[in-house]
């Protein structure tokens, strides 16, 4: 008798369709994230070395007669020890001269040399002429200087050995960690003060302060670097304040990093402070605890998860940032810039991949700790918590106001200096105003086309990104059963946050620029930039969507199923309208980030798809600093405008679709 059939819940058409959608979006993430990362990892282990057993030499006597037998280069080297083992590891364009093997070598000598490969695929050059195979090539002594052998490809850890034995490379690890830790401490402290003032004081103009504090999010991270050059460079307005120290280096990186990470830290800490429970303060007050004691025993512990989370987010932003250290880092090498130098400067893709792997480690650790901490924070909130309401306190309110004014002034000055520099004709020799620096078309970087491309990229990323992210989040939240698939999807959706932009961009080169890849044609088009941007900023968008969807009861699905309404009708008629505010949030987030990002796209743009943010970088690189500032400010105004549109749209949407929330 055949075994009985296991009873299994029958999948409805809806279930199959939803799972189908989920699998499709999971496939998207696999193709745009997992596979490129795999390609990059395997590149890091792809090594080149000189295989001396591949070649044979024969040396003549002074009369040019080849009496002695041919000898393998390997044996020659074993005898003389001229080429140490570590010199045999190289990169794809490595070349090794052979004269060192002959201590008595002189290019004037009448001795003649013969060289050949011992196998059919041995490659050597005489000058720039390429020879392959086992046929003897004869040269005189002078020409023998021009003989070099080429490396063979294999797999192994040699690239990592080279990396860790090159001080100028591995010093970058320490440099990166140092600026990241210092920037993190400063940013989190400053942002905590600001958030504390916003949530615990009764000062005026809180809305204005909040608005100004968010401004740095609207500009590329390298813009503060440009402002710092104008403020503290050798021709800077406030150069004397540097007291002889150079702004090019760690000072500049830390200064600028604090500027561009401030809003990120502020958002997290403000949320953390907002959820603290007023009942604890009442209890402390009734126990007659001093304000100082209350601060350390109630406020800080209450906000500790927020602080830790902010610290790791800032750390991650700084260590993976590339634009700022490139502009203001001077000779202070950091990991992200090393990747750029290896890939663009030296075309050493393997070493670029190795540095990427090194950069991945702190980024992933910071990310993992942050995730753990965030999980705990949710548990802090209980239904009985009472929202804390600050009471006026003249002295404290004034101190808060002064502090926030100071920070706001700092942010406004940085942006103001950029705008000012953009309008000056020729700093510092001709201080008349002119629009000359806006004539982007005569400069490197792509001109006004770059600006138009960026807007196009922003809009496409916002549109397709929001659709993909929201549909993905919906399927993973509302699909019944299919547990393994869903948790796998969640993992995939969280991964992009841990991947630095530079690493993602490099991984895309390896994956999409491979002629065997059927997706190869999108390389160099706008499509790859859109895909890269969506993937790069996937996680935060996904989390926003999931949070919004979690607020919706699953009953909706059950009811609609029992009414035999297909899920897509429910999705279109109920879910999307209810979640519209979050959908708008996701799209503005994607738009602003696509406008400002440099790190991921710097490897991927082509001459037809130059971008405004990359143009800022390239114009600064070429020394056109003022036009770079001008373009940076164009990005700022565009993003500010998009924000205003988003605000108005949200208001209108809230009015129309969210009326049900008001009882």
């Amino acid at each position, binding site marked *: 008798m055949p075994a009985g059939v296991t009873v299994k819940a029958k999948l409805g058409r809806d279930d199959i369709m939803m799972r189908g959608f989920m699998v499709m979006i999971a496939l998207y993430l696999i193709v745009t994230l997992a596979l490129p990362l795999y390609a990059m990892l395997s590149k890091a282990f792809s090594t080149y070395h000189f295989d001396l057993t591949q070649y044979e030499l024969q040396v003549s006597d002074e009369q040019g007669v080849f009496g002695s037998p041919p000898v393998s280069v390997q044996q020659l080297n074993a005898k003389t020890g001229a080429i140490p083992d570590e010199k045999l590891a190289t990169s794809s364009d490595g070349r090794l001269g052979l004269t060192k093997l002959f201590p008595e070598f002189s290019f004037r000598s009448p001795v003649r040399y013969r060289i050949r490969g011992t196998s059919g695929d041995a490659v050597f050059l005489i000058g*720039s002429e390429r020879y392959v195979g086992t046929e003897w090539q004869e040269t005189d002594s002078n020409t023998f200087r021009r003989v070099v052998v080429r490396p063979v490809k294999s797999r192994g850890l040699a690239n990592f050995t080279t990396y860790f034995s090159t001080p100028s490379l591995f010093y970058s690890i320490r440099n990166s960690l140092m600026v990241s830790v210092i920037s993190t401490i400063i940013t989190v402290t400053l942002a905590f003060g600001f958030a504390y003032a916003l949530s615990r004081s009764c000062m005026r103009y809180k809305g204005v302060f909040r608005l100004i504090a968010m401004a740095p999010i609207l500009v590329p991270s390298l813009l503060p670097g440009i402002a710092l050059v104008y403020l503290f460079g050798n021709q800077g307005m406030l150069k004397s304040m540097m007291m002889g120290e150079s702004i090019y280096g760690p000072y500049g990186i830390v200064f600028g990093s604090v500027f561009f990470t401030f809003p990120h830290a502020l958002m997290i800490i403000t949320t953390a402070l907002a959820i603290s429970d007023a009942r604890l303060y009442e209890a402390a007050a009734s126990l007659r605890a001093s304000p100082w004691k209350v601060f350390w025993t109630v406020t800080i512990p209450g906000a500790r998860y927020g602080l830790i989370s902010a610290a790791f987010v800032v750390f991650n932003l700084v260590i993976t940032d590339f634009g700022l250290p490139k502009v203001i880092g001077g000779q202070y090498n950091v990991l992200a810039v090393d990747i750029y130098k290896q890939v663009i*400067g030296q075309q050493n893709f393997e070493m670029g991949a190795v540095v990427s792997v090194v950069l991945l480690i702190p980024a992933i650790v910071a990310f993992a700790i942050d995730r753990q901490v965030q999980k705990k924070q949710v548990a802090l909130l209980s239904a009985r918590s009472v929202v804390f309401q600050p009471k006026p306190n003249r002295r404290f309110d004034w101190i808060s106001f002064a502090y926030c004014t100071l920070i706001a002034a700092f942010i406004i000055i940085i942006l103001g200096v950029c705008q000012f520099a953009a309008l000056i004709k020729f700093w510092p020799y001709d201080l008349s105003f002119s629009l000359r620096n806006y004539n982007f078309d005569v400069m490197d970087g792509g001109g006004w086309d770059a600006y138009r491309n960026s807007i196009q990229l922003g809009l496409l990323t916002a549109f397709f990104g929001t659709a993909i992210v929201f549909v993905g989040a919906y399927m993973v939240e509302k699909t019944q059963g299919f547990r393994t698939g869903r948790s796998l999807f969640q993992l995939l959706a969280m991964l992009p946050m841990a991947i630095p932009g530079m690493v993602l961009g490099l991984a895309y080169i390896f994956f999409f620029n491979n*002629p065997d890849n059927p997706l190869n044609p999108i390389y160099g088009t706008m499509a790859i930039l859109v895909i890269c941007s969506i993937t790069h900023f996937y996680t935060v968008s996904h989390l926003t969507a999931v949070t919004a969807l979690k607020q919706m009861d699953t009953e909706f699905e059950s009811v609609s199923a029992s009414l035999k309404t297909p899920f897509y009708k429910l999705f279109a008629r109920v879910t999307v309208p209810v979640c519209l505010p979050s959908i708008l949030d996701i799209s503005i987030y994607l738009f602003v980030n696509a406008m400002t990002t440099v790190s991921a796209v710097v490897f991927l743009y082509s001459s037809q798809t130059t971008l405004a943010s990359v143009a800022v970088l390239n114009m600064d690189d*070429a020394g056109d600093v003022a036009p770079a500032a001008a373009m940076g400010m164009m990005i700022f105004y565009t993003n500010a405008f998009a924000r205003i549109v988003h605000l108005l749209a949200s208001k209108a949407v809230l009015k129309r679709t969210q009326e049900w929330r008001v009882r």
Partner: protein
Amino acid sequence: MTIKKSVLAVGVGLLMSSAAFAAELTVYTAVEAEDLKRYADAFNADHPDIKINWVRDSTGIVTAKLLAEKDNPQADVIWGLAATSLLLMKSEGMLEAYAPAGVENLDKKFVDKSTPPAWTGMDAWVASVCFNTVEGGKLGLTAPTSWKDLTKPEYKGHVIMPNPNSSGTGFLDVSSWLQMFGEEGGWQFMDALHGNIARYTHSGSKPCKLAAAGEIPIGVSFAFRGAKSKAAGAPIEIIVPSEGVGWDMEATAIVAGTDDLDAAKKLVDWTVTKKANELYNSGYAVVAYPGVAKPVEHFPANLLEKMIDNDFEFAANNRKAILAEWQKRYDSKSEPKG
């Protein structure tokens, strides 16, 4: 009948439209974007039947792209890429050796030494030093006249140059010093120079622009950039060091494995003509065709005679080793003090 007719018409139309261009060539280039259209128009004036599809990027990226496509070349012709890059391609066996008609008219310096040559040069970009006279005056600096001058203590912290690891201009400086002063002398010179360098930039034009803006008074850059900044009103002087200056050239080659060798040959034949060289002259003071070049405004007069007899092969074959040595010696300047 009518359907057949219209199909026929469409077919003929397709034939006609493709007949307008008998051939299409994918051409990789690092020439400035604003110049590309002029190059293509001038070429199409003589060869209206060949369409050029440009793929343009900076030298480093085009080189990387070509090397990455080694086994599956996408380009038919390279027109306007650094000769040092083309030497890399040549040693990978990626170039189709071809002597363009009229190559004998070109200055020998500009033609690959193999027969038939794998590439032919177009124009040269030459190293120079930009000196800001206003800031130099404020700091009490005299204008340097030679490379060796730059190592004098008075210039400490006032010299800036490109990092050879990320800039082609930086590399041509370093390779020219090694050729002029010898291996040992070259590194000795750079050791001394390193003490005076404020920092190394990523790009080759930035030092001159920083000198023009007075940020650092002395920038090691290239002459063309200096002339442009000077024309824009910067208070700079373009100095050609007395020992001689390094240079690189833009060059042209056919990519081995091209689908349309005939069209590629026609294009390369055209790139060595007098007419083409006159075109190159609008941006470059030194071009491959003798007697064509007209002086470019603000260009130093003695530039041509100061160009060293550059050994491109030395530069290409030792590039990796030189860069590694340079990085070992100077790139760890980044190590924090203390």
